């Protein structure tokens, strides 16, 4: 346990494509980077018993999530020679077709960037206290279950 402020990963609502573009653009000054790996989670319009998902409403236990993300980040940087890593996850309502998760790793060579990105995505899904509530057309809802 620590009292220090951990890096924020949560953003309100969907992650826009221009936000992603800006994040990519910022790396053009880091000319030791040779490879970026990006994962984007997009809200699916699944059907459950004839009801269609129109959005997912995300909530979190923020203090625990940021502490856990800090641990994950330290573990990943210890394991892979990354130049940088950026993580963003939505809170609140994200409509079907919109982006709710943005994982962005950069390294000198592709292997590290790709492997680190995949590992971080798995850890986020498995270890971060975040809950998605699937909202249907008729305003009913169902709590999302991640496939692991």
């Amino acid at each position, binding site marked *: *346990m620590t009292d220090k402020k951990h890096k924020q990963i949560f953003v309100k609502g969907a992650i826009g494509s221009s936000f992603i573009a800006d994040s990519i653009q910022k790396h053009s000054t880091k000319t030791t980077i040779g490879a970026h790996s990006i994962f984007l*989670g997009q809200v699916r319009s699944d059907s459950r018993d004839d009801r269609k998902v129109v959005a997912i409403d*995300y*909530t*979190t*236990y923020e*203090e*625990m999530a940021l*502490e*856990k993300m800090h641990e994950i980040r330290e573990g990943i940087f210890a394991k892979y020679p990354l130049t940088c890593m950026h993580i963003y*996850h939505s809170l609140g309502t994200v409509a079907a077709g919109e982006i*709710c*998760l943005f994982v962005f790793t950069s390294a000198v060579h592709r292997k590290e960037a790709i492997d680190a990105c995949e590992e971080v*995505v798995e850890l*986020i*899904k*498995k*270890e*971060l*206290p*975040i*809950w*998605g*509530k699937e909202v249907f057309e008729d305003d009913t809802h169902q*709590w*999302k*279950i*991640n496939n692991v």
Partner: protein
Amino acid sequence: MQLKVQAFGLLAEIVGNNIIVDKQTDTDSLKKQLAVQFPSLVDIKYAIAVDKKIIAGNTLINEASIIALLPPFSGG
């Protein structure tokens, strides 16, 4: 004395975001007390976090412990 317990996701929907339970000395007795106080929790799968860490086994708690009930995660 009483314990403040946070609940999240599906659990918050059932019992509210913040609940008060009679003071317990460890997480096993807390679970039993929760089942008495909130019978609807009995069939629901959840983990307990003490001080922002998911407990691995029965864990001592006191009034200063930060306790949270966590249904399975579904981020991303």
